[in-house]
């Protein structure tokens, strides 16, 4: 066998092996593609199971009639999350009823059950925790701001600048309790999940013990905000919801099912701060 012939045989052998390998690979790919068809449903099933496992479902009730527009909730939120004034998670605005009466609307993130922000996030950076909190993974966020556009409540803010050293509301209204977020991510209210998680570890009950309750709820001087476990009928929020004559959620027609409930302004209730 000449050198040339032997080379050819080797090439044929190599070609044969390649073909066999290719077929194997193709088979494996088809099988893998088949398997992946089941993954999304398996993932959803797993998520549903974990949602059932979490016995707490956190929610908030804001009584518009008790709100005096002092913005303590906003200031406490700014201090705890170390926010600049143009980056607020929680805002208080003056709104008008159809009859022309002014009232204060304080708005945190609604932590929707069907959160549009979670649906649109292309990288899974925003997700729903088993306890109902819509949270962010800042490491995954690519800053596309889809979630900011999708949110019907304008609850999300984009971090254009470098994080500030210390919020102007600190130390008067609190101290930073969470690490600063990097520039270029979308930020949002967390229901102070760091307080909830740490509190539960220590056997405290969020909504009852101030250390485990969101800063805005603790700061409210008129107790207009109530927080607690919607699953527990004895929690402060369940009792407040049961006692309230009327409750509503913002933009209910969108079926986002927010976890933040409101007691709407009652024309009979005198609130001397309204309209000021």
């Amino acid at each position, binding site marked *: 066998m000449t050198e040339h012939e032997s080379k050819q045989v080797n090439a044929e052998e190599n070609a044969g092996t390649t073909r066999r390998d290719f077929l194997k690979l193709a088979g494996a790919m088809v099988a893998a593609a088949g398997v992946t068809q089941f993954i999304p449903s398996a993932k959803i099933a797993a998520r549903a199971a974990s949602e059932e496992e979490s016995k707490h479902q956190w929610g908030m009730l804001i009584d518009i009639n*008790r709100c*005096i*527009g*002092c*913005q*303590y909730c906003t*200031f406490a939120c700014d201090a705890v999350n170390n926010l600049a004034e143009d980056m607020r998670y929680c805002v208080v605005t003056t709104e008008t009823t159809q009859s022309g009466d002014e009232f204060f609307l304080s708005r945190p993130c609604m932590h929707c059950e069907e959160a549009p922000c979670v649906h649109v996030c292309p990288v899974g950076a925003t997700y729903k925790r088993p306890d109902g909190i819509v949270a962010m993974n800042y490491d995954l966020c690519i800053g596309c701001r889809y979630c900011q556009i999708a949110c019907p409540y304008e609850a999300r803010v984009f971090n254009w600048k470098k994080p500030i050293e210390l919020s*102007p*509301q*600190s*130390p*008067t*209204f609190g*101290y930073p309790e969470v690490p600063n977020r990097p520039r270029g991510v979308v930020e949002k209210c967390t229901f102070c999940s760091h307080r909830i998680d740490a509190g539960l570890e*220590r056997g405290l009950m969020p909504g009852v013990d*101030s*250390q485990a309750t969101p800063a805005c709820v603790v700061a409210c*001087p*008129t*107790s207009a905000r109530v927080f607690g476990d919607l699953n527990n009928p004895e929690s402060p929020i369940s009792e407040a919801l049961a006692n309230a004559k009327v409750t509503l959620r913002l933009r209910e027609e969108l079926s986002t099912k927010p976890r933040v409930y409101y007691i709407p302004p009652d024309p009979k209730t005198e609130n001397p*701060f309204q309209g*000021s």
Partner: protein
Amino acid sequence: MKPTKSLLFIAGTLTLFAVFAALVLMSAQTVSAIAPAEAAQQDLKDCLRCHEQPATLWESSPHREHNVSCTVCHKLADSVGTHPETSKYTVESEETTCLACHGSASKENVASEMAASQHAAVGLNCVSCHEQHSQGLKVASEARTVCENCHKAEMRNMVESTHFAAGLSCVNCHMGDGKDHSMNISASTCSDCHTDLHQAREMLDAGVEVNAMANPKALVTQVPAEQTPPTAPQGGVHLPAWVYALAGVIIGGVAAWAAFGREPGSANRKNPN
């Protein structure tokens, strides 16, 4: 023993006792005067390592002046566990913290004044107005006084008033000199300055300056004189009592030995000549 020796012994012992007693008394006095301050310092040193911000606020607070340290309000949740690994310090309720000193048992009795106020009726508590670590007022960044945090409309009216021009603020009428936390206006609130309302009217009509009205002293916002706490005696070496005790025992022992120690086992005694 010769009579001179026994006299010397008695005199020496008495002197030693006197010196020792004086030392112990002095050290005990010093310790009792600075003990709370030392405890506060120790608290601050330990807590400051992690909790810099609240400790900094506390450092220049009235609580600091009166040696009300961190652990007076914050208690360790579990006496067996160690902080911060297994046990955390709790934030106690207002009843057991603020009201323990400022409550109905105290001279100032802020608690009952507060309970009588409209503020308490809508659910306000101490920390609604006071920052807990500095005990200062929580004035929001866009407000002039702590009252304006909520009472924005009232403040807008107030700044246009003659009272504001005369240098008065909310608390001059709503709290008075006694810092009444009920925020109620008393019968004498107006008449304290306006001794004769009708006369005041005439004075105004006649173009008299507002500041020239009766009792001009009340028009000046009175800042209560700072209460200075009893300060620890300065100078000298502050050592724990046991050091003084030990020093006393050693000095006494050496002196006793020097005076009489040689007597029983002394080599000189064995061979007198």
